[in-house]
C-alpha cells in the first residue's frame, strides 16, 4: 500500500508532515493533544499522503497502427512499450490499467498493482490486433468520462486524427485532472516519405479506399502537412501541460523508454519539441 511516488495531495495519513493550528471544521480526533499539553494551543497534525499511482495505458489499435514499412509495426512498438511501462510501474507497486481501442474500446482493464496483474495486461496486449478507423478523440473523450479517479494516462498512438478534435479530447483529460503522456509512435517512412515510384496507397483503416500517388509530386506537400500536424500536436500538449514523446519504430522499446525517462528526470521539455525538424 505504499507506492514510491509522492502524491501531490496532502491529507491525513501515516507520514507526519507538519502541525497546523486547529480551525473550525477540523475533526477533533486529529487534534494533537500532546502539543496542546505543551503549548496549550490546539494543533492538528498533517500527514503526507503516500498513494499508489493509478496509471492507464491507452493503446491505439486502429488500422493505421498496423503500418510496418521496413520495421516492426507501430502497434507492435506500442505493445512493447506498454508492456515495459506496465512492468516498471507494477514493480514500483503502482496500479496499472489498460485501454485498447480501434473503432471502440476493446479492452478496459482497471488498474491493479498486484504482480500477477502484469500477465493480465500482457495477455490483453497480445490479443490486440490492428483494425478499424481511428476515432482517437472520441475514445479519449470516452476514457475521460469513464475514469473517475484522476490518474496518469499514457496514450500510445500515431495521433493520426483531426487535430482540433484530438486536442479537445486531450484537454478533456486534463480537465479531469489526469496527468497525460502522449507517446506518438511513428514509422520512419511516415516521417520521411521515401517513396519514388508511382504507387497506389491503400488506406489501412479502410481497405476499400485507395488513391494513386506519384510520391515525387506530393512529397513536399505531404511532409509539410505531416510536420505541421505534429508540431501543432506538440504545441497543444505543451500548452495544456501534458507530456509528449516521439517514438520511432526503428528504435528499440528500451531505448525509447530510456530517452523518455531521461528527458523527464532532467525536467527538460520533451525531445520532440526541441527537435530541429519542428523549426522547418
Amino acid at each position, binding site marked *: 500500500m505504499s507506492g514510491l511516488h509522492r502524491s501531490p495531495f496532502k491529507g491525513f495519513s501515516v507520514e507526519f508532515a507538519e502541525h497546523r493550528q486547529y480551525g473550525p471544521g477540523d475533526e477533533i480526533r486529529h487534534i494533537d493533544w500532546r502539543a496542546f499539553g505543551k503549548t496549550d494551543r490546539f494543533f492538528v497534525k498533517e500527514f503526507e499522503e503516500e498513494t499508489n499511482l493509478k496509471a492507464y495505458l491507452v493503446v491505439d489499435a486502429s*488500422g493505421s497502427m498496423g*503500418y510496418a514499412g521496413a520495421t516492426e509495426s507501430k502497434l507492435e512498438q506500442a505493445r512493447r512499450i506498454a508492456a515495459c511501462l506496465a512492468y516498471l510501474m507494477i514493480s514500483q507497486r503502482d496500479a496499472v490499467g489498460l485501454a485498447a481501442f480501434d473503432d471502440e474500446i476493446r479492452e478496459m482493464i482497471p488498474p491493479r498493482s498486484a504482480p500477477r496483474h502484469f500477465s493480465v495486461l500482457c495477455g490483453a496486449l497480445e490479443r490486440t490486433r490492428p483494425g478499424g478507423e481511428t476515432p482517437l478523440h472520441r475514445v479519449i473523450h470516452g476514457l475521460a468520462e469513464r475514469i473517475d479517479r484522476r490518474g496518469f494516462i499514457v496514450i500510445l498512438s500515431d495521433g*493520426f486524427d483531426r487535430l482540433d478534435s484530438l486536442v479537445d479530447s486531450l484537454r478533456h483529460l486534463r480537465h479531469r485532472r489526469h496527468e497525460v503522456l502522449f507517446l506518438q509512435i511513428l514509422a520512419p517512412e511516415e516521417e520521411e516519405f521515401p517513396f519514388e515510384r508511382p504507387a*497506389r*496507397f*491503400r488506406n*489501412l483503416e479502410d481497405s476499400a479506399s485507395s488513391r*494513386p500517388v*506519384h510520391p515525387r509530386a*506530393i512529397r513536399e506537400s505531404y511532409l509539410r502537412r505531416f510536420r505541421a500536424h505534429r508540431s501543432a500536436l506538440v504545441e497543444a500538449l505543451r500548452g495544456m501541460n501534458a507530456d509528449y514523446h516521439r517514438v520511432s519504430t526503428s528504435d528499440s522499446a528500451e531505448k525509447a523508454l530510456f530517452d523518455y525517462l531521461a528527458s523527464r528526470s532532467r525536467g527538460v521539455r520533451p525531445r520532440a519539441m526541441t527537435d530541429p525538424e519542428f523549426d522547418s
Partner: protein
Amino acid sequence: MSLGFLNLSMLIGIAGAAVPVVIHLFSKRREQVVDWGAMQFLEVEERRQRRFRFDELLLLALRMLVMGLVAAALARPFLASGGANSQASAGDARRDVVIILDASASMSIPIEGRSLFDRSIDWIREFSAALRPGDSLALLLAKDRVRPMIDPPTFDFGRIAAALTDLPAPRGGCDLTAAIVEALRILESTNNPEREIIILSDETRSAWRVDERAKWELLRSIRGKQRAAPRLWSVSPSQSPGESPASNGSLGPLQVSRGVIVPGREVRISGEISNSGSDPRTRSIELLIDGEVDAGATQVVGPIAPGGRSTFSAATSFDRPGDHVVTVRFADAADSIPSDDETHRVVTVVPALEVILVDGKPSAQPLGGELGFVRVALAPFGDPTRVVEVESVDAAKLDSAILSTCRVVILANVDRLGTDAAVALESFIASGGGAMVILGDRVDAEWWNESSGAWLPAKIGEFVKDASPGGVVGRPAPSSFRGPALEALGGSGQSPLGEASFASKRRLEPMPNAAVLARLDGGDPWIVERGHGRGRALLLGSGVGAEAGTLPVNPDFVPWIHRLVADLGSLDDGSKNLRPGEDVRFAIPVPPPGVEVVDVRTPDGRVIQSEVVRGGNTALVSVDASDPGVYRLDGQGAESGGVRYATVEADPRESNLERLSAADRIEMCKDWPFVILDSGENAVDRILRSATVRKHELWRPMILSALALLCVEIWMTRRATVGS
C-alpha cells in the same frame, strides 16, 4: 489536293501509337500497392488531383502522337496537287530515274560524224548533271539481254560518269520492252515520289518489238499496278534521226553440211546474205577458220536487191580434232552496221564416230545377220577416210565399260538384255549417248516395254509378217519424214526410200513425249525418237537386214543410216552455237584446287573472269553473253590447243533498220504516259520540269513536329515526377 504515301507499308507502324496505351495499362496492372496509415496527409485538393489526371492523359496522348507521327513520316506522305501531265514545277519532289540505253548495233550508225550511241552518252551526262541532290539514277544497257550498269539507283552521279566512260561498243540486237520491264522492277523498290523511265534509242522498229502487242499490254499492266507509276520517255539524242542507211548488208547464221566432222573430210559451210540497205549491192565474202583466212574460199555474191537475200556456200576441211570456229565475213568495205558483217559457227571435229553394233541374230556370212549391211554402210572395208568406227559386241557382253567407248549403240533384233546391261544402256543414254533399237521377230516386246519404259520412244506392239514370197507389210512414206536427219531424204517428191519394202514390222505406240520421225505408207510409225537425259533414242519398227526387206539395197540406205547415226552421235548439241540472249556455258575438266575463275575472251575483245562451278566430273563456266560473236576459253583440254569456243548469233532483226511509223508511235503512246521526243534538245529540261502531280512531301515537318512534341513530353514528365 490529295494525300498519298510513298512507303505505304510503313503505315503499319502507326499501330505503334498503341504502345504507350499498352504500357500504361500494363503498368496499371502491375501497380505497386502500399498499405498506408497516414492517408490524411496524402490528400490533395480536388483541383490538383484533376490536373494530375489531365496531365497523365495528356502525356499519354503526346506519346501516342509522337509514335504515330514518326510512323506516318516513315511512310513518306505527300500532298499532291495539280493535274495530269502538268508542266508546272515539280515542287520539291525528288525523282528516281532509270535510263535505258539502246546498245544494239544500229546505235553505232554515225550521223554527222558521231554515232547515236556516243550522242546518247553525252545526253546522259547532261541529264545527270541537271539532277538535284536526292534524285537517284540507274542505268541499263538494252541488248539481247538487259545488262544493268548501275543498279540499284545511285545518288552518286559520279558513278554514272565513271560507268559512261567504260561502256562496251554497241553490238547485237536489243529488246527495249524487256529493258522497260527491268526498269519497272527497279522503280518498284525506290522511294522518291517522281519516277521516270528514259529510253535512249534510234527508234528502229525491231528494237521496240512493236508487233508484240502482248508484251506492250504486259508493260502497261505492270506499270498500272505500281504504287508510284513512272512516266516513260523515249528520247532520240540526234536532232535528225536519219533515214535508213543506203548500204547495209548482214550475214545470217551458218549451216554445216555434216553432223559429225572428222579431220580431212570436206565440210560445206553455207549461209544467207541480206541487203537491208536502199541500193542493190554485190558483196565479197571470205571464210576464216580459227581466225585464219581460207584464201580459196573467198567469193563474190550478188548483186542483191534492196531487201533481198542470197545464199553462199564454201567447202573447207579441218586437219585436227577439237573445237574450231568458222567465220564468214564481208571482205569488202564496211557498211553502216559493221557488227552484222560477220557470222560465226563453232564446229567440233572428232577423230571418228565410235558405234557399237549389237546384233541379236548374228551371222558368220558377209552382209548376214541383222546388221551386216549397216556395218558395211557405216564403215566400208578399206576406206581410210571413213568417219565411223564400228565394233560388234555380243548382247550378253554389253556393259557400261563397253558403252563408255562409243557415242552410238545400235541394237538390232535383240530379244532382251541382262539386268546390268539394261541399266548401263539407260545410264549411257541419260549421259548423252545415242541408242538405236531396231526391232525384229526375236524381240521380247514385253521385256523391252517393262524394263526400258524410261527411255524407249514407243511401246512395242505385235509382230506383223507377210510370209508369202515378196510379201510387203509396208513401205517408208518419205512425205512423213521429219527432223534434220531425214528431212533431206524425204519431201513430197520422189524419194528412193519410198521404194523400199518391209516383209515384217512391229507395231509401235509412241510415248507421249516422243516424236515420230517417219511413218510407213499405211500410217504406222516407223521411226520414233525420244530424248532421255542428255541423250536420245531411236526406235525402228522394222529390221534393216536382208530378211526384213529391201531397205539395205535401196540407193538411199547409206546416206539414210549415216544421217541417223550422225544425228544420234552429233557433238553439236546446241551448247556451242547459241541464239541471242542465251547463256554461254563451257563444260571443262575440273580445274586444280584454288582455281576459282578462268579468263574468257568476249566478242568485243575484252577478257572477263568467269567463275568456275565445280561438279562431279566436270566444271562449268557460265558467261553472260549479251553480245553476239565468239566467246573463247583458253587452256582447257588438249584438243585444238586447249581452246574452247562458243558463238552467239546476232539477232537478224537488228539488221532491219526500219523506223517507227506514225501509227507505231500512236499505238505505243496510247493509254499511258509515254512521250516520244524526236530530239534530245530541251528534252532534259522538259523531263525535269514535268510532274504528273505536284507533290509536297510532309515527312520533314512531321519529324520536326514529333521532335517538338517529344520535348514537351520530356518537360511534362519531368514536371510530373519532380513535382511542381
